């Protein structure tokens, strides 16, 4: 079995983010690392975050830093990854790519202990960079410019210290003196010698300054001093005239200012009043804002509170360190303060947010200072504060993030054309169920009822140079309605259009006149109001029209074509006539090429299943240039011109090209390239769009021509980052559409459907899925479907949290304590924060502030029945007394008294540290009431461990309780044990069944294949895996095959060899004799690994599904970083050969951006087996054209054929 791996939804979580001006000049951009993805984001003028570029790097990006050479206008990006190399990138604005400027190898690849890549420190003046490992190694590279002003990098200078753990590295701002780097280090050499643990307890963290002597080209340890043992992070303090220099050491509960030759200044970090005393406060992310006259730091704690840190200093002497409460936002992995007065917050889980500063925290607030620090016998006096609603920040945009996906099911619950993907996302109060549908999201601007059922709609400008459209013209079966676009849209009668007849086409013709084609003629309305009318000869009527700005072709009934042109005076003149063989089904004229008088090509579709290209050259007289036969009669034709572009927003150079698109009556979109000179058709592709013949319309998307195809659902064909994408829109069936530009909506679409006129815009281009979000209460763990009733049952649980009642009481108390003044204040701000819905009814929404922390043995959990259609929870059972749900399944017991029941495995008071323990485990059995909408507890059975897996099996319930697999039957008051097997190595985390086989997944030891012998009532393992795998997800593929994913980011398939499988099935003892012989330390048979692939992200859910009607079945996976991918099985050997060769060439000619070898990355833990990386193959179109041609030559194909192949395989998946 060979598989094609393709990422459907790129990772949405963010590992780290940096900001700077990467394209040069004044622009502000953000570079984010999303695991193995590097992206460039830019906030647009409306404060919306736009993704400019997204590159798959095939390596784990661990750290990012930006630097700027003195006097330069542009920032470079330094990437620390698992490649054992330092990579310096420059953003190339013209080509929209990251250019790799330097790549220096220093060590082995992989995230190793002593190979640098984990930390990056930058000299604030951009003269040097330090790259460090978790332990021992630190390397310094000197950055400089050569005579041609190119960036140069030196050979590495070592600053190693063995037996040392490094917590953080940063540059120290010391102006133009020798660059200094600071590091928090912990020497463990003594602790290792001492087995009693005394030395380990005494180990002291140090702050060390490393000085790079630029003269001697040498790094030395300049200064080292003991620092608070809770230190975890360093922040550079501006220096060299801008500030006092030195560093801020963030430690547990403290922020300390340190500098060489300067006394320490220490201030406590204020604590939330409700925080348990034993919990510390740790800073997890920091951002610095620096202006000419001032600077401050924003530090965020692990609970989400942001503090503003300021230093009072005169010259180099700091007199006071102040920490003031600023605001609270969800916990971030990185924060970026932009010069434009915005804050980008990359949330560690859930949606990322973009804030605007409303203030910089100058108002009075809870503050702690180094001057007021009180030391008592019990330690330093804490300072308390109460979180309040946002005061200094205002959220203006958010970027959707699925991170983390906890569980996923692909099912067509809503009976739409394609299945929906139900994902459980997020953590704690920010959890949600997200329903993903393939397609682009649209936002509806207006819907208005019309007096009849319209058949068509157009928009026209009054002048070719106008920015906005002037009229919307709607045609009915016997009339035409003209609406004028202004402040409002209203009906007008002075436009000159004939309103007593239906229209066939309405458009701007020439520079400033309008044309209306109706069945009896053409009405040409000149700018000064003169009207010229051309009447159809005799009793013939006009059937079809094709036009561009200067040419019009009409088809009369019977099949005669009449060709008109606009002459220099703006008159529409009949030029030529041409008789076709039969009725014309559709026609279109290519747009007039830049600088030309006319377009040469007319496409005519006939009912004899052909499309002809006719020339409109006056010398050639409308003769056929080429003929293409198609599978069904064409319904609609559209020429789409892709203009030549060198660079620009979309990236790489494209030669101009012309595509002819045809919507066929069988629902297929047929797309072919038209030779710009000869009119020959080549490189045709077709794709099934829906059950209705697609109607094609040209619209504008991001200033470029795009195509809207209206079949049983609408599709958009557009160019995104250099690729042509054809994506469905998540919208209802439309009849007819036109582009729409007005004051309020620059790039919209107006469409008719039923008796309504709809105006909408298309959002978030480039995305594969659009999502509907339903918020949940706690971290969702698993869910099951009740397919018959179309309901979901979700289990949610959170450790270290108070139950709902306790939270409610605490909140009430807190508000009472703070008095009404605070409440009144809160209300006033509520108005300001109007955009934020969640905040409105709840003064301190848990979404922003998180749940208050409790002790580690405290759990909250709930079981929820949810109707996804109405997004309503029909039943919510909150578990009591620290009980938490871990597994769920629906089960039909033999005795059919109750029908389908719900089994939920729970544990009470579960603790992971210091040892995994729980006071009790239970299996709850619930009965569905009210047609499945509500649950009733039938009984609760205590078990000896945590039931982590449940599954129905032959009318009984299989439960995995720690290492025990047990079969239960339903009793009156509890479950009854029927059979068990205690021979599993660790903890059972998944159970799948098929016929009499049971496939058990162990948390640490991969799969075990079991069999149940009913006669002897025995469960036994007949096969297992020889490789230890820490399972995180599993799925049953077929009788002998299982798919699994492990904690280290691998997806793999195991299969029981055919002969072994047959033997077991034929053996009357079912392999039992062999099993009893007890060979091979485990099961007598071993499964074979048939597929292995390193995804590079922890896969949490797997499912086999087909995402499109008629598409191939693939294995869909979801990951912790919020990405979705698919593995599609190849059906032909030729395809396998083709793609493996393409992959091989791309590996050679297109090495990944961050320096990791592609093959090595995909084989990070186990050698990759029989999987072709589609993400790498899809980088083919981004290569330079000559390289594309070179690879294509070696494959004996043309680049076009390769692109077609890539498109085909993608279309099979989605």
């Amino acid at each position, binding site marked *: 079995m060979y598989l094609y791996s393709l990422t459907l939804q790129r990772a949405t*979580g963010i*590992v780290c983010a940096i900001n700077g001006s990467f394209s040069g000049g004044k622009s502000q951009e953000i570079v984010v690392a999303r*695991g193995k993805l590097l992206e460039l984001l830019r906030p647009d003028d409306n404060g919306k975050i736009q993704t400019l570029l997204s590159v798959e790097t095939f390596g*784990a990006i*661990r750290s990012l830093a930006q630097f700027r050479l003195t006097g330069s206008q542009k920032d470079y990006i330094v990437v620390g990854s*698992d490649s054992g190399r330092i990579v310096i990138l420059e953003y190339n604005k013209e080509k929209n790519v990251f250019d790799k400027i330097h790549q220096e190898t220093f060590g082995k690849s992989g*995230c*190793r*202990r002593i190979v640098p*890549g*984990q930390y990056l420190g930058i000299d604030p003046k951009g003269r040097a960079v330090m790259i460090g*490992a*978790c*332990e021992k190694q630190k390397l310094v590279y000197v950055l400089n410019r050569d005579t041609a002003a190119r960036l140069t990098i030196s050979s590495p200078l070592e600053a190693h210290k063995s037996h040392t*753990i490094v*917590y953080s590295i940063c540059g120290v701002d010391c102006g133009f003196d020798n660059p200094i780097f600071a590091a928090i280090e*912990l020497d*463990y050499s003594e*602790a*290792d010698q*001492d*087995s*009693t*643990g*005394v*030395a*380990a*307890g005494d*180990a002291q963290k140090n702050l060390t300054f490393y000085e790079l002597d630029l003269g001697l080209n040498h790094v030395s340890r300049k200064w080292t001093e003991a620092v608070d043992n809770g230190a*975890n992070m360093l922040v550079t303090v501006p220096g060299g005239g801008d500030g006092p220099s030195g560093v801020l050491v963030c430690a547990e509960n403290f922020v300390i200012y340190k500098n060489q030759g300067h006394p320490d200044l220490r201030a406590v970090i204020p604590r939330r009043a409700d925080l348990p005393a034993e919990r510390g406060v*740790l*800073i*997890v*992310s920091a951002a610095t804002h620096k202006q000419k006259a001032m600077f401050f730091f924003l530090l965020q704690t*692990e*609970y989400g509170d942001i503090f503003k840190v300021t230093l009072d200093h005169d010259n180099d002497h700091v007199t006071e360190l102040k920490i003031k409460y600023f605001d609270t936002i969800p*916990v971030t*992995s990185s924060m970026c303060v932009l010069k434009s007065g915005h804050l980008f917050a990359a949330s*560690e*889980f859930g949606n990322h947010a973009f804030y605007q500063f409303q203030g910089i925290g100058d108002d009075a607030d809870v503050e702690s200072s180094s001057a007021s620090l009180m030391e008592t016998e019990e330690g330093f006096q804490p300072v308390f504060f109460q979180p309040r609603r946002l005061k200094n920040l205002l959220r203006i945009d958010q970027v959707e993030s699925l*991170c*983390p996906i906890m569980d996923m099911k692909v099912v067509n619950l809503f009976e739409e054309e394609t299945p929906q993907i139900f994902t459980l996302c997020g*953590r*704690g109060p920010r959890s949600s169920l997200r329903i993903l549908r393939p397609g682009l999201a649209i936002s509806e601007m207006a819907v208005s009822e019309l007096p009849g059922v319209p058949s068509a709609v157009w928009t026209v400008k009054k002048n070719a140079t106008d920015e906005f459209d002037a009229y919307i013209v709607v045609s009915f079966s016997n009339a035409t309605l003209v609406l004028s676009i202004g402040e409002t849209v209203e009906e007008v009668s002075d436009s000159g259009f004939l309103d007593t007849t239906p229209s066939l086409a309405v458009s701007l013709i020439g520079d400033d006149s309008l044309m209306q084609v109706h069945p009896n003629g053409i009405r040409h309305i000149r700018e000064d109001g003169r009207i010229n009318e051309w009447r159809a000869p005799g009793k013939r009527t006009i059937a079809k029209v094709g036009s561009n700005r200067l040419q019009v072709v009409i088809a009369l009934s019977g099949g005669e074509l009449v060709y008109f042109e606009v002459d220099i005076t703006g008159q529409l003149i009949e030029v030529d006539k041409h008789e076709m063989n039969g009725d014309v089904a559709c026609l279109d004229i290519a747009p007039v090429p830049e600088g030309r008088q006319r377009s040469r090509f007319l496409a005519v579709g006939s009912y004899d299943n052909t499309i002809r290209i006719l020339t409109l050259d006056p010398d050639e007289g409308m003769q056929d240039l080429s003929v293409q036969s198609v599978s069904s009669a064409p319904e609609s034709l559209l020429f789409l011109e892709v203009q030549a572009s060198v660079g620009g927003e979309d990236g790489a150079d494209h030669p101009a090209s012309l595509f002819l698109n045809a919507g066929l009556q069988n629902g297929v979109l047929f797309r072919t390239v038209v030779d710009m000179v000869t009119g020959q058709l080549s490189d045709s592709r077709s794709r099934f769009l829906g059950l209705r013949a697609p109607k094609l319309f040209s619209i504008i998307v991001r200033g470029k021509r795009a195509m809207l195809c209206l079949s049983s659902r609408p599709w958009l064909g557009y160019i995104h980052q250099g690729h042509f994408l054809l994506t469905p829109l998540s919208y209802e069936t439309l009849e007819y559409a036109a582009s729409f530009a007005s004051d309020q909506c620059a790039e919209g679409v107006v469409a008719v459907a039923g008796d309504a006129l709809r105006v909408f815009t298309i959002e978030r281009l480039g995305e594969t899925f659009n999502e509907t979000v339903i918020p949940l209460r706690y*971290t969702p763990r698993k869910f099951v479907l009740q397919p018959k009733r179309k309901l979901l049952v979700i289990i949610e649980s*959170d*450790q*270290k*949290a108070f139950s709902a009642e306790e939270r409610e009481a605490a909140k009430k108390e807190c508000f009472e304590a703070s008095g009404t003044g605070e409440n009144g204040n809160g209300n006033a701000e509520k108005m300001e924060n109007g955009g934020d819905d969640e905040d409105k009814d709840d003064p301190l929404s848990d979404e922003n502030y998180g749940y208050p922390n409790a002790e580690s043995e405290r759990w909250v959990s709930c079981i929820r029945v949810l109707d996804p259609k109405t997004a309503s929870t029909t039943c919510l059972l909150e578990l009591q007394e620290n009980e938490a749900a871990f597994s769920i399944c629906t089960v039909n017991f033999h005795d059919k008294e109750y029908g389908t029941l719900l089994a939920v495995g729970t544990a009470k008071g579960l603790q*992971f540290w210091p040892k995994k323990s729980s006071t009790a485990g239970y299996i709850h059995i619930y009965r569905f009431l009210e047609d499945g909408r509500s649950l009733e507890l039938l009984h609760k059975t205590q078990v000896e461990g945590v039931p982590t897996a449940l599954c129905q099996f032959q009318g009984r319930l299989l439960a995995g309780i720690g290492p025990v697999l047990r079969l239960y039957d339903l009793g009156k008051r509890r479950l009854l044990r029927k059979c068990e097997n205690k021979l599993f190595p660790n903890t059972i985390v998944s159970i799948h069944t098929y016929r009499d086989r049971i496939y058990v997944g162990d948390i640490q030891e991969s799969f075990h294949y079991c069999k149940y012998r009913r006669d002897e009532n025995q469960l036994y393992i007949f096969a297992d895996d020889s490789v230890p795998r820490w399972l*995180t997800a599993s799925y049953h593929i077929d009788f002998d095959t299982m798919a699994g994913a492990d*904690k*280290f*980011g691998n997806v793999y398939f195991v299969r029981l060899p055919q002969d072994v499988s047959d033997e077991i099935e034929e053996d009357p003892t079912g392999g039992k004799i062999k099993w009893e012989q007890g060979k091979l330390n485990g099961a007598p048979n071993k499964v074979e690994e048939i597929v292995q692939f390193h995804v590079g*992200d*922890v896969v*949490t859910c797997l499912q086999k599904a087909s995402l499109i009607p008629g598409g191939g079945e693939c294995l869909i996976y979801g*990951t*912790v*970083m919020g990405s979705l991918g698919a593995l599609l099985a190849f059906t032909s050997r030729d395809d396998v050969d083709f793609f493996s060769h393409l992959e091989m060439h791309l590996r050679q000619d297109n090495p990944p951006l961050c320096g990791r070898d592609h093959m090595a990355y995909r084989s990070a833990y186990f050698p990759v087996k029989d999987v072709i990386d589609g993400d790498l193959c899809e980088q083919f179109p981004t290569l330079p054209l000559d390289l594309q041609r070179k690879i294509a030559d070696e494959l004996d194909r043309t680049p076009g054929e390769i692109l077609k192949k890539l498109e085909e395989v993608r279309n099979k998946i989605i």
Partner: protein
Amino acid sequence: MLISFASLLDKDIAVLDRASQTPTCSEWAVNIQRDSYASYVGHYPILAYFAIAENESIGRRRYNFMQVEGEGMGS
């Protein structure tokens, strides 16, 4: 296995040097432990996975792993 010492770099020799002294059981265990934690800290998705399991922030999880790495066998 034969190793040509001439072809080795300094750092390789250092590795061999250390390898020649057979580590004690606890040294070996500490090494494995440190390698593991360093790997967890380096792979963000795994860190996130742990953070979800323990309902902690990723920053706190990373810090705790680093602390354990420092403690070694004293823990």
